[in-house]
Structure formats: structure tokens, C-alpha cells
């Protein structure tokens, strides 16, 4: 639920120069050692990126799933129950940790935890198909070790030929960016960076806030990652600044308003206009709701990421209401969405909470 529009650009460029075939270099073969999952994402060529902060690693797995699947997902009521049933438990006894759509195939991947014995697994769903278990056995894979101090990976993107992850520790409230140059080699680590970010809502530069979600972004041929934080600055970081010894300064571009924690984010293009969609958990919901659920989504014009108004001058959704009109919206059809990812050029796949114990899988038109 992260990656995006710019990833497609990377893909198309990759097809021209052969770059995409070099996501994994000299991978290991066998059972991919995934023990715990924080987040799922995709690199080009159907390479699944599994963030396992608990065991301080990212596992990049070649799925071989690179043929585009046709057909519609429609709506699956009780999708959580369906997955739970395949594991032999009730809906409330599993947690869907994350979802990601493989952009190479349009297949849905979901990370799931069986609560009683902590089994963690990935299941897949093809359009019109049934839930399948994605086995980690007999795979080509590479383990990217993460340094001490990381205990949770909050998002991973592949951008500008690098694998970039947002990470944090259980004990520290800090923004860490981890980057390793591609192609990824088994057991070759990268660097952990501390990123300084201007937080628009309280007008302050700081490192003491972890990034929640990221997406790759390209502007004038230059690669960036765009990160969103709680309360809710949207910040871009130039990829070429991620160099050993460098201090990474983010550029705050948008402020979506306080009381929100981003959960997923992706970009897309519709009717010739590029947008970014991010769903959030609103902890102000009980006092200041924006809809029927604390889970809601914001759409904003991708062009705002290229604005000259930055940091102190960044557009603020609730303060600059006139300027933000039509550029930053609440995406009403996405109320209640807990996890989502872009499916194709027209729609997203999303998990919508139902009764607090189950989720429906829904296909929602891109706003």
C-alpha cells in the first residue's frame, strides 16, 4: 500500500534499460527466512519485500508472479473470516497486518498473524480466485540485515535503484531511514540514517517522530521518497541525499491536519491528473469526526509535492482552506478503510472494517 505511480515510471524505464531484472543479485535459494512481518511491499519484477523489524531484516523474495491477471476482485464480504477459516480459527483470532498488490500481476498479497501461536504468513488472492497460502519454500530470496536499534519496519519502497525503508525502535520515538543500493544481495546490509523533518503543524524541525508510510516520487528526473508522519506532515527527501555520513533533511510539502496517523499511501493518475491517496487513523474521531469511522482517506494533488511553498509555507489543509479546496480532499468512499493499495489505473483494493472483528475486501474507484 505504498509504492505507486512513480514506481510504474520506474518500471517502464526499467524495461528499457534492463534495470528491473537486477532487483536481486545472486540470491539465495530455499526457504525464505520470514519469521515475523511488519509490512509488505513490492519492488519491480514481482519481488516481494517483507519488513521484519522484530528480527531486524528485510527479506526480498522473487515470487515469479509477473503475468498480469485479468478480471475483477469485486467485493468479498467477511474476507477476514475467509482467511481465518483457511487457518482454522475465527475471524477475531487473526490479524491482517498489511496488504500489497503486486503491480506486475494485480494479485493481492496479505500478511496475516494467527493470534494464538503467532504463526505469520502471507496469503494471496487473484481476481475471482480464492485465498491461497504463499509458501516461503523453494524461493529465490535475499535477506537485507538491519542494524541494532531497529525493531519495526513501517514501510519499504524501491526507488531510484535503491531499497529504502522507514524504521523505528520499540524504545525510541525517532525517524530512521534505512537504504541499500540495488540490486539487493543476500546478507548485504546498507546504512541507517537519521532524518530531520520540519513539522508544519507545530513549526519545528525534529528527528523525534517516526515516519509512518512512504512512496517513491520523481520530479524533473530526480528521485525522492515521500513520507507521511502522524499529525500529518507529508515530506519529501531527495534520494541522492541518502549517502553515507550525510544528514538527510526533509522538505515538508503538505500538512493534512492534526489527529491523524497515516496507514498506507500510493499515487495514481486519473483523467490526466496525478494524485496521492493516503488512509489514516484519526485519533480525534470521538471528539471531531470526519465521517462514520476513525479510518478515513485523504486525496491530494501530486503537483503539491512540487510546490515552491515548503516547510513554514507548506499548504495546510485546515488552515489554508481556500487554497486547499480541490487540491486536498477527504475521499468519502474510503471511509472505514484500514488497509489499501492501488490495484490498477482505475481502482484500489481495500480492507474495510465491519464489526470490529472482520473485514470486507472491497474494490473502490480511485477518487
Amino acid at each position: 500500500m505504498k509504492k505507486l505511480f512513480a514506481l510504474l515510471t520506474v518500471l517502464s524505464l526499467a524495461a528499457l534499460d534492463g534495470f528491473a531484472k537486477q532487483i536481486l543479485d545472486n540470491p539465495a535459494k530455499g526457504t525464505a527466512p520470514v519469521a515475523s512481518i511488519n509490512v509488505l511491499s513490492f519492488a519491480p519484477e514481482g519481488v516481494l519485500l517483507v519488513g521484519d523489524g522484530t528480527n531486524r531484516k528485510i527479506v526480498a523474495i522473487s515470487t515469479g508472479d509477473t503475468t498480469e491477471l485479468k478480471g475483477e476482485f469485486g467485493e468479498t464480504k467477511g474476507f477476514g473470516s475467509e482467511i481465518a477459516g483457511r487457518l482454522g480459527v475465527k475471524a477475531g483470532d487473526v490479524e491482517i497486518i498489511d496488504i500489497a498488490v503486486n503491480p506486475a500481476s494485480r494479485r493481492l498479497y496479505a500478511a496475516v498473524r494467527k493470534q494464538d501461536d503467532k504463526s505469520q504468513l502471507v496469503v494471496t488472492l487473484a481476481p475471482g480466485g480464492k485465498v491461497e497460502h504463499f509458501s516461503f519454500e523453494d524461493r529465490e530470496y535475499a535477506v537485507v540485515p538491519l542494524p541494532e536499534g531497529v525493531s519495526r519496519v513501517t514501510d519499504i519502497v524501491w526507488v531510484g535503484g535503491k531499497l529504502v525503508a522507514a524504521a523505528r525502535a520499540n524504545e525510541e520515538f525517532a525517524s530512521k531511514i534505512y537504504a541499500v543500493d540495488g540490486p539487493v544481495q543476500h546478507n548485504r546490509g546498507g546504512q541507517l540514517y537519521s532524518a530531520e523533518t520540519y513539522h508544519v503543524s507545530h513549526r519545528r524541525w525534529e528527528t523525534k517522530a517516526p515516519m509512518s508510510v512512504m512512496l517513491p516520487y520523481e520530479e524533473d528526473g530526480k528521485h525522492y521518497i515521500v513520507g507521511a508522519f502522524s499529525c500529518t506532515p507529508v515530506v519529501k527527501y531527495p534520494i541522492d541525499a541518502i549517502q553515507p555520513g550525510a544528514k538527510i533533511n526533509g522538505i515538508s510539502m503538505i500538512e493534512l491536519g492534526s489527529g491523524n496517523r497515516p496507514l498506507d499511501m500510493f499515487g495514481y493518475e486519473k483523467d490526466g491528473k496525478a494524485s496521492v491517496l493516503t488512509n489514516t487513523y484519526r485519533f480525534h474521531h470521538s471528539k471531531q469526526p470526519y465521517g462514520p469511522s476513525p479510518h478515513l482517506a485523504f486525496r491530494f494533488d501530486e503537483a503539491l509535492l512540487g510546490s515552491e511553498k515548503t516547510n513554514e509555507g507548506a499548504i495546510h489543509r485546515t488552515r489554508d482552506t481556500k487554497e486547499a479546496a480541490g487540491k486536498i480532499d477527504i475521499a468519502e468512499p474510503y471511509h472505514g478503510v484500514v488497509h489499501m493499495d492501488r490495484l490498477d489505473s482505475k481502482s484500489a483494493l481495500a480492507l474495510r472494517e465491519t464489526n470490529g472483528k472482520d473485514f470486507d475486501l472491497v474494490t473502490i474507484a480511485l477518487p
Partner: protein
Amino acid sequence: MSLAALLASASLAFGTVPGGDAWKVSIRAEDAPEGSAITLHLVGQEPDSLGPAMFAKVTRQESALVLEPSFPLSAGNTYLAILLDKAGKELGQAKYTVPRKDSPPPRLEAIYPTSEKLPANLLKFYLYFDRSMREGQDLFDQIHIEDANGQRVHAPWRRLELWTADAKRLTLWIHPGRVKRGVNLREQLGPVLLPGKEYTLVLDKTLRSADGIPLGQEIRHSFRTLPEDYVRPRPDSWVLELPLAGTSQPLVVHLPEPVDHALVKRNISILLTGKKVGLDRIEAGEGESVWSIYPSQPWESGNYDLVAGPDLEDLAGNTPERVFDTDLKDASSGDTPANVEFSLD
């Protein structure tokens, strides 16, 4: 049901995999016609409610057809195994309820910080349980802070689960947006804790272990708040009780305030003429404001540096370099030496 189906049902049975406690379903080879298969389903609470076929591997062995579930069966659940012929026609079935383990309720072993007096801008609690606990967002509605009148503080937590790998320790963050000064969330909702007040951390009795056993009784932990703390934990304010050279006595460090116990181990190091000294362990005492550092080898004579790492935090998230909510443009940050020198003769 035909006689063949009855015989098949009779030999379709649940059992454990030899050498382990994983469950399997098997049927005698002679009762499983060529091309037959077994599926396994969760039996729901509603009559006739049957879950989808579970993830499993079915293999035909010399003497039996065997189904091994891909994931362990769960205690207390009832499962139905169905034998199907190659046309998908049911030949027999067997039902089994996995016994519940006779486990006592989970136990909360410790809460850190241990002091009963905490800064009002406290950033986190650590809860240590005696076994793996049930993960999931529910826990943020099962753990509360009550004020002296028994009123629950509204939305105190950052709802991001941070468990250790074994799910025995939960790091429970008071929402940093209500701790940092000037942040909208604090301005709109106010800080979670006010100075000079009595509060109680309350764990609902419904909080469950991983295997579903609830605490069974509410757990209450009272504390009193001090003024907010915006003072960095400066190593130059620490008082050392030195060990004798040639012994493995601890170096005892007295701090003017407690520090985060979970960050001490990887943020305290000792150098002997610039070379890192191997440490056996670091133990906390007196509300985490006294630390005893034990060497892995007896102390040598020489000149030492006790070094505090940049991520060492006090209970309000202040580090040797910065106050937690410092604006990085603040020129006063980062001016503290992060080491204390001492000598052993």
C-alpha cells in the same frame, strides 16, 4: 451411508504427528480409494456452519492417506475432517475438539518505570508479562489511565503495537503528540498527565495471553506526577562509586533522575584508554536512577571513560544531546560532553 463410507469414517482419525504435538488427520490406505482426498474445516458455532478447507498438505503414504495442517490447530476449536472420493463425493468424516490447555491466567511481572513518582511528560511504560500475549489493536482499549476521581484520561496512547519478538514485553507509548509542547494534539486535547496529580494505570481483566486466557482480574498501578522534565540526562552530573582495580566489583553510577531502563544496555559503554571494555551486565536499582555496571573481566588499572550514547533517554525522552521536543534550530542543543572520566589504580 454405505458400508464402505461407514468403514472409511471409522478409520478417519485425528492424531498427533510422531515426535511432536502437531495434529494430523489420517485414514488407513485401504479405506481411502485411489484419488481420494481429505479436507479439514473449522466447525463454527452456528449449526451446520463449516469454514473453508484449511491450508494443509495431503500425502498418500504406504499405509495411510495423511493430512497435515499447514498451521497448528487451535485449542478449544472443533474441526471436521472430510474424506472425498476423486469425484468430490463425501465418503466419510470425523470430528475432533482440540482440548484447552489447563493454563493459569497470564501474569504481569513488572511495570517500568518502577518509581511511583514520574514526570508529567512521561513518554512510555513497559509492561512485562510472564508469557506471550495476544497482539492486536484491542489492547489500546483495554489499558487505561485513570485520574484520582476514577475518570479515564481520553485517548492517552499512540496506537502502534510495539512488542518484543516473544510478545512478552509491550512498549506502551503515551501519545508523543500530547507530550511535545506546541504540537496541535497537545494544544487541542491537553497533555495526558498533569503535574502533581495521582493517576492509576489500569489493565482490564479481559487482556489475553496469546492462547486466549484472560488476565481474569483487573490490574491497577498507581503513581504520582512530578513537574514536567525538560532537563537532559547529563553524564557530567552523574556520581560514580568506583570499584577496585583487579576485582569484578560493579561500577555504580548514581544519576539525579531515572533513565529508560530499556535503552541503557546499548547506550552505556566504557572505554579504557579509548578501547571498549567488555561488560557482563548492567543492573538497575532504586527506580532506575542507580546503575551497577559489571565487567566481563576484572577491572584493569588505568584511565577510563564512561560514555553515554546519544539515544539514552530519561523518562521524558530527553537525551544527553537534546530535550525531547527540541526544535533542531535551537542553538543550545548538543553541547553536553557524553562521557565521564575516571581512573582506577
